[in-house]
Each structure stands twice: as C-alpha cells, then as structure tokens.
C-alpha cells in the first residue's frame, strides 16, 4: 500500500497509465464483487450503472456547469435507483443465476441503444468533456498523477466498505443468500432486502467509476460506457481474483490488466490476436482456479476457507 502511494510520481508516463488502469479495473471489480461475489448475483450488465454515472455527471457539467465532484454522486444516486428497479423486477419474480445475468445484460444494452439514438445525449458521437485547463474543483487535472490518486482513494474507500460489510450482519446475510436462499430465509434473513442492498451499493459505486472514466479520458460514447466490455471488465478481476473475497478483485486486476497490456503490445499489428490470447489465458485461469487466485492461495496454505 505504501508503495502504491509513494512510487507513482517516479514512474514513466506509460507505466503510470497502466497502473491507473490496474487500479481503475480493480475499483470496478470491487464494486461488482459486492453484488456478484458477496451476494452471488452474477450481473452481466454493470455497464448500465457505469454509463449512468458517466453520462449524468458529464451532462450536468456540460449543461449546468455542475462540478463532477457533485455530479458523480447524483449519478451514483440515479444508478442506485436504476439498480433497485432492475433488482426488484428480477428478484421479486425469483429470477436467479443466468436469468438474472440476462436481465442485467438486457438493461445495459437497452440503455446503450437508447443513448445511441438520443440526440440530447450526443447519440453515437458521444460527449467531449472539457479538459484543456486544469481545474481541480471541476475534477480536471493536468497530467495523470492526480487522477491516479483519485482512483486510488476511491479504490481504498470501496475496499474498506467491502471489508466492513463482510464482517457485519449484511455480509453474513449476503453469504447465506448466496449459499442457499431458502435456508437463509428460514434463518430469518430477508433475502430480497439483502440482495437489493447489495444491488444499490454496487451500482452506486460503479457509477462513481463512470464519472472517473469520463473525467480521465475526457470523452464518452454509448458503446464505450454502456457496452459489454465494461460489464465484462468489471466482473473479470473479481472472478479471476476470487469472487466474494475482499482482496480478490484487487489481485485479479493486478494480474489481468498488465496481462492485457502485454498481449496487446506483444501482438501489435495483428488486430484481435491479443484478445484471443487474453481469452485463452482466462479460460485456463477459470478452468484451473475456479475459486480464483485468493481461493488458490488459501487452499495452498491449508486454511479452512
């Protein structure tokens, strides 16, 4: 942790960009993990919340001049509301496993198509976020380093939140629901309420990540923010690292993100080859480490869990 705070100013620009990427995907993984890992509700459409966050804060900035520092929480609130709506529809009617995943995917795709066809939000041209001048109060910085510390702080806060939840009543309720919903209900756990809480928290945090993305890259469009690559990017670090564990998404991102950078570099010029290699590595990881890296380490140590 100390190295993560102290070293980055010394890093060359490219390495710093990779590190920002690592922490950013770790953050989204942590957010996804609350719902997908702890509650065991496998969302395949977290891009919906990510996009709501990115578009809300950016539109508020462009149309009303509202600083994204505030806009991100408006976006978070909207995303959480949307998440509760999605969750209530799904959970109320008992959708589980792949059916729930499909519903989340459908909602994200729906938002992607709607935003593609809505002129007011820039349709397929997307939105350009002003970034020419440094204005920390407006979430605009010169250089990459401040962005790094912002996402590092967001990651640390999300990690701390996950850790606290895991040790509190909600964490136990979520684990019980994940393991066996009927037994959880019989033990007095309000399964619907627990899942909705996880949904709200997870979508809220994911939306904040959307705002970060918009400010950092200074450009958003429907395919980037509502597309499946964000949904997959959010769930992979958690699954590869260890779903339902505090550190899983962090570990997962520290392995996956540089790996994807490396394959892209090693196979430059051959379009798509890097994604195929990356995919092959993922298949291997998921086949041989179904409990994720954290599960693997625990098994080697002979721990109880």
């Amino acid at each position: 942790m100390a190295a993560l705070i102290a070293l980055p100013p010394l890093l060359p620009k490219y390495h710093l960009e990779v590190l920002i990427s690592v922490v950013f995907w770790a953050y989204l993984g942590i957010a996804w993990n609350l719902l997908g890992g702890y509650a065991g509700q496998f969302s395949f459409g977290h891009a919906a919340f990510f996009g709501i966050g990115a578009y809300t804060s950016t539109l508020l900035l462009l149309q009303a001049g509202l600083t994204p520092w505030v806009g991100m929480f408006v976006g978070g609130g909207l995303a959480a509301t949307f998440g509760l709506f999605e969750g209530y529809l799904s959970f109320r009617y008992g959708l589980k496993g792949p059916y729930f995943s499909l519903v989340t995917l459908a909602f994200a795709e729906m938002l992607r198509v709607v935003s593609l066809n809505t002129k007011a939000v820039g349709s397929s041209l997307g939105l350009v976020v002003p970034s020419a001048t440094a204005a920390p109060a407006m979430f605009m910085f010169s250089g990459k380093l401040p962005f790094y510390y912002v996402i590092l702080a967001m990651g640390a806060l999300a990690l701390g939140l996950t850790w606290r939840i895991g040790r509190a009543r909600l964490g136990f309720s979520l684990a019980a629901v994940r393991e066996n919903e009927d037994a959880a209900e019989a033990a007095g756990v309000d399964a619907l309420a627990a899942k909705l809480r996880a949904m709200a928290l997870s979508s809220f945090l994911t939306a904040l990540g959307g705002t970060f993305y918009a400010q950092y890259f200074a450009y958003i469009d429907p395919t980037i923010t509502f597309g499946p690559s964000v949904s997959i990017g959010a769930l992979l670090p958690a699954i590869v690292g260890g779903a339902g564990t505090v550190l899983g998404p962090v570990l997962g991102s520290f392995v996956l993100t540089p790996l994807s950078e490396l394959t892209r570099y090693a196979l430059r010029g051959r379009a798509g080859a890097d994604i195929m290699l990356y995919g092959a590595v993922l298949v291997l990881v998921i086949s041989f480490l179904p409990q994720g890296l954290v599960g693997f380490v625990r098994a080697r140590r002979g721990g109880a869990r």
Partner: protein
Amino acid sequence: MSLLEMTALTKRFGGLTAVSNFDLRLDAGEIVGLIGPNGAGKTTAFHLIAGFHEPTSGEIRFKGASIVGFKPHAICQLGLARTFQIVQPFAGLTVTENVMVGAFNRERDAAAARRLATEIVDFVGLSPRRDMPARSLTLSDRKRLEMARGLATRPELLLLDEAMSGLNPTEIDGIIGLIRLIHARGISLLIIEHVMQAIMALSHRLVVLHHGEKLAEGTPSEVARDRRVIEAYLGEEP
C-alpha cells in the same frame, strides 16, 4: 391461547390436495409429533407453517396472530424456526458463521452475534468443529448444525423435519438427548419423524396425517393402538 393453531388448513397443487382441512393445536411447552406414511403431507404442512408455501385456504395463528402470507424470514423473526429434512447448510461458511446468520436476528452487533453463536454451537455439541466449513461435516453433525442455526434465532417454537433420518442408532440417541435439552430450555417443538421409537419417546402428543388429512390424534400409546393408524402404515388385514 395456543402457541400454534391451524384451522381447516388446505393446500392444493393443481389437482393434488397435499393437505386437506387440517386442524392442529400446539400449546407452549409441548412436544408434538407429526407422523404419517411417505407422501402424507407432513413436509407440506411444515412449509405452510414456516411460510414457504401459502395455504390455499385455512388459517395459521402463531401466538394468537395470523401468519398466513408472511415470508419465511418474518415468521422466523416472530420466534418460529425450522430445520430442513434435507439438510441445507451454508456449505462455504464455517460452523460458527452458519449459526451467526441466525444469531444476527437477535444481536445486531457482530461480536455479540458471534458470542451467541459460539454458545449455541457449544450447546449442540459442535464446538470441536466450530471453525470447519459446513461442507466437511458428517450427516449427523449437519443435522445438529441445522438445529443450531434455528436455535440461534431464539425461537419459541422449533419445527424439526426428520432430524434423525439417515443416522445410526448411536447418533439417533444423541439427537434424542439434544431434543430433550432443547425442550428443557423452554422451547416447544413440532417434530416430523419416521424413527418410531424416538418420536414415541419424545412426543407428548402425536398427530397422524394420511393422504393430507388428519387420521388420528392422541398420546403415543393411544395412537399406537389406533386401528386406522395401523391400517395406514401396514395396510388392511385381508
């Protein structure tokens, strides 16, 4: 006032009537056994009481108030806990963590919930396994874990669904002893059981279900002599 009172309880699944016009009363402090051949509707009756199914018609009152339409967790929080015939531990959690899930109904704070869970784990005789994942327990220990999870919710009435099925005679004796200890804590019990010597020894009163209807009711010795009960179990004399 009875602790649990069911009147004219009926549950139909499509054309099949699983429970029909069933009356049952259980007073505080009682152990009531619910017996009957396979398919008689015993487990359906449990599902109805615990809120896993909604009755087609009829009334269920717990501590004088209707609980029809309540969700299982709400019924549990009122003080009516159940175990499952097919044990359903939270396999990935440790024994103590399993029990803590129940304990959180009475203790908001994690440390207090852990204390309550540890006490209950000890009470059911699982303390040597408290930090083991539930998936590594033997069937007998899983049955104890089911009871522990229910007990941690501090119930007034505990429904036990075949807590002894699949166990050997020594293990059965252990569970009988545990049920007596639970009763001694002031908890009333409604028990489904196929192990006859156990349910005869434990129950103050037996209720016999057959084809979803109440066939007989009385003390264990009355029921054991009842001609209709014998016929239901063994078939009619030629």
